[in-house]
């Protein structure tokens, strides 16, 4: 048998023994390929000119992925080297040279990587189609299947894989070249090196780290940015301290509480965990950090999506909006001229927005929510304009009785104003509140229908107030094309450059905002989720490989316990508990850090923007849900495999 055929045989065995790792590599290869597909897809790039930055963003994300993956591959390869030390020792014993073994091992990993890449490319095509469908849905274009197998994407994926394996192999190659027969053959008899040796020191670290963990969580929950940073630092110190000292903390705890030790399955569960963690403290803490990054990436992705989608929804009731303090401004007149000449209009209306004498309503809102003040006084609109605008938008008609005023606001302000019943005094006339309306009304743009809310008052009352700005709104016969709105923006820029940027005119086009929302969603959410997925897969794979490598030892343990009279149900419960704690330990700190970070970030966003599925609570829930979904798949795979192979029948 030649060494290369031995390599192939070992590669086959490796895929079987480390199936979870192999599957993970396949999935990551598929992800890399699918995203590379986006980079090279002319069809998707042509959907919007705003997509031009997507390629560089995806490539940047891929570079991070390469580093994470080379860490995973390097970790797994080194883990295999340790697990198979006896086998390598035997090769050396029968006269194979270190150099040859290194080559053989390299070939073996190359074969595994090659197979994973090939399968990944196939799966990647499906994933690419999914991404295509998502992009099409974002742009409101109907999806149709079209087979696309860009050789450039294949080439780039191959290049990334070569990089991953080259980076990963560096450490193992050096290790193989230096290994000695004795160390390898008697490796199993050696006790594994522990990262921290002195037991009393460890106990101190254990106690201090727990305290830091509690302090860190409290600080993060406090909500302020600076305290949050200190809190995050405390949690990182807690992670490393806790995982490095857990193995000695358990015996110390049991020593103090012998009664708890012998309660139910405590002894077996915690001793098994402690023995596992005594050698993988640093890796557990690192995994925990990866999971923090995962949850935050997912949360940020959702928040970005929410901001764009929210803006597009809240302002999207009119197709075009023009607004200016002075309608004689050149941008206003030129834009209006362009619109009238080039875009078929279904309906349009020009009206004025006025300023009240006080800012009482605004102050009330400010005192109850983090409202962004833009006007000096409350904004006011004429009743007849309001009724006409409602009719234009197809909203149910409203009436205003004499001596009353209405408020039209965003839904979040409606909640703030639920107890508001103050009168408004304008031009000496006192008006009482006649109702609150919350339909979409372009109130998320500062210079249109008020910022978040507007007061609707009888015409003659409004007309006595000073004018804030004039607005002209349009409904078009069909969606404004990209060419049209690009031309409008070019026109606007040309004028502004000429007149020296003194411009107070707002030009808003719904189609452009939608395209922006779609492009930005794709450009921020895609890479963040791409990273999050790879991070979760990496963390879960390492945890699972570690757990499955203990199959033989667990089998012997449960066989003995069966002889000693442990019931099947108890064995299952003990395995389940140990499993739950093992996988929960690195996942709890990320939840403690991730959730407050997401909630605090969502709070920075202008209130009322994150609506529907993008509400802060929903964002947090979905981020955690997605993370636990991927994580749970790995836990389930590991548990099913262990249960089948470990528990005696």
């Amino acid at each position, binding site marked *: 048998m030649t060494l290369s055929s031995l390599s192939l045989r070992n590669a086959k065995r490796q895929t079987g023994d480390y199936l979870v790792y192999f599957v993970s590599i396949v999935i990551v290869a598929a992800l890399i390929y699918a995203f590379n597909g986006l980079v090279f897809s002319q069809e998707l790039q042509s959907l919007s000119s705003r997509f031009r930055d997507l390629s560089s963003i995806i490539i940047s994300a891929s570079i991070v992925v390469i580093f994470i993956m080379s860490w995973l591959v390097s970790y797994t390869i080194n883990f295999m080297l340790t697990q198979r030390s006896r086998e390598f020792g035997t090769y050396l014993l029968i006269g194979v040279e270190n150099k040859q073994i290194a080559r053989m091992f390299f070939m073996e990993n190359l074969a595994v990587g090659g197979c994973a890449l090939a399968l990944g490319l196939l799966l990647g095509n499906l994933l690419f189609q999914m991404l295509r469908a998502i992009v099409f849905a974002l742009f409101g274009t109907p999806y149709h299947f079209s087979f696309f197998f860009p050789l450039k994407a294949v080439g780039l994926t191959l290049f990334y894989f070569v990089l991953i394996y080259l980076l990963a192999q560096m450490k193992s190659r050096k290790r193989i070249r230096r290994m000695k027969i004795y160390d390898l053959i008697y490796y199993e008899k050696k*006790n594994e090196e522990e990262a921290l040796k002195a037991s009393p020191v460890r106990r101190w670290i254990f106690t201090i780290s727990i305290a830091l963990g509690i302090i860190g969580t409290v600080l993060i929950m406090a909500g302020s940015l600076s305290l949050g940073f200190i809190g995050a630092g405390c949690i990182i110190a807690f992670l490393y301290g806790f995982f490095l000292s857990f193995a000695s903390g358990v*015996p110390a705890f049991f020593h103090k509480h*012998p*009664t*708890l*030790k*012998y*309660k139910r399955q405590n*002894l*077996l569960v915690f*001793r*098994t965990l*402690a*023995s596992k963690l005594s050698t993988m403290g640093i890796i557990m803490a690192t995994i925990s950090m990866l999971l923090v990054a995962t949850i935050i990436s997912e949360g940020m992705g959702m928040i970005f999506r929410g901001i764009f989608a929210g803006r597009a929804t809240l302002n999207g009731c009119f197709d075009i909006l023009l607004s200016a303090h002075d309608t004689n401004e050149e941008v206003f007149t030129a834009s209006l001229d362009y619109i009238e000449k080039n875009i078929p209009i279904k309906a349009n209306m020009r009206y004025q927005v006025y300023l009240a004498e006080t800012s009482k309503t605004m102050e009330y809102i400010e005192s109850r929510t983090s409202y962004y003040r833009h006007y000096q006084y409350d904004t006011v609109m004429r009743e007849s304009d309001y009724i006409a605008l409602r009719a234009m938008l197809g909203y149910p008609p409203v009436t205003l009785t004499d001596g009353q005023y209405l408020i039209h606001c965003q839904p979040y302000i409606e909640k703030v104003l639920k107890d508001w019943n103050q009168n408004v005094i304008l031009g000496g006339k006192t008006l009482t509140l006649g109702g609150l309306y919350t339909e979409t009304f372009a109130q998320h743009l500062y210079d249109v229908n008020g910022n978040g809310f507007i007061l609707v008052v009888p015409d003659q009352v409004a007309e006595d107030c000073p004018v804030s700005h004039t607005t002209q709104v349009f409904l078009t016969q069909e969606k404004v094309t990209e060419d049209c709105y690009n031309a409008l923006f070019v026109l606007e820029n040309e004028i502004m450059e000429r007149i020296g940027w003194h411009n107070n005119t707002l030009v808003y086009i719904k189609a452009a905002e939608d395209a922006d929302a779609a492009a930005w969603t794709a450009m921020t959410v895609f890479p963040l989720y791409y990273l999050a997925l790879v991070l979760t897969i990496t963390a879960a794979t390492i945890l699972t490989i570690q757990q499955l490598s203990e199959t033989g030892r667990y089998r012997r*343990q449960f066989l*003995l*316990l*069966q*002889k*000693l*009279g*442990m*019931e*099947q*149900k*108890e064995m299952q419960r003990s395995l389940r508990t140990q499993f739950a704690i093992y996988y929960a330990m690195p996942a709890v700190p990320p939840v403690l850090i991730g959730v407050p970070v997401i909630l605090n970030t969502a709070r920075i966003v202008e209130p009322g923007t994150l609506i529907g599925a993008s509400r802060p609570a929903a964002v947090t829930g979905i981020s955690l849900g997605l993370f636990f979904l991927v994580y749970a798949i790995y836990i389930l795979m590991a548990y099913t495999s262990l249960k089948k192979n470990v528990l005696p029948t």
Partner: protein
Amino acid sequence: MLQVKNIEKYYGNQNNVTKALDRVSFDVCDGEFIAIMGASGSGKTTLLNCISTIDTVSAGDILLEGENIADLPADRLARFRREKLGFVFQDFNLLDTLTIEENIGLALSLNHQDPGKVQNQVKAVASKLGITDILEKFPYQVSGGQKQRAACARAMVAGQSLLLADEPTGALDSRASKNLLEIMTGMNRDMGATILMVTHDAYSASYAGRVLFLKDGRIFNELLKGQRNRSVFYHEILDVLALLGGDVSDVI
């Protein structure tokens, strides 16, 4: 205490049946120390596995304290094992993640013993077997003899009525073997433990009060120690082994 009645055990499929035990019958009385001897493949371990309920018999009955173990459902069998049987194996079978104290206490913990009392019970048994000073250590930190004594402690700490030992001296040097056998004799004599030991070592068997010889799955002979001293009994055992066939050096 233990009645083995006409048990038979077959392995294999329709085309290839191996008879591991062939109509084996014997009784073990309360407080007896009995050894089962035989060459490799004679059915010793199969017999022990059947008695310890790890394996089932193809025919016949095994009664422990009047209870037929073949009639017990799986969960009752587990309870039966942890309450009534204690095990000592050739390779110790201690869990390497637990200390010696915890390995012994595990048997009590499995029996749902009050967690507050476990430590004291373990200490009491450990002092009888002379392993008090190694209770805090892990199995890899103590000698083979100490490990086997810890296994003995685990086998009796929960008040198990029958101690089943499978080649307990197999992995020990001669001094540790002698020490262990004396401890087992002491457990039998002073604490009234009933011991059933499987061995192919005549020296170990000479510590028992009665020796059963198995050959090809059948009981071939039985020797009673009676009032003879251990050295005479040892030679008698060797004589029977010579009759059983095979080289004496194979079985010592």
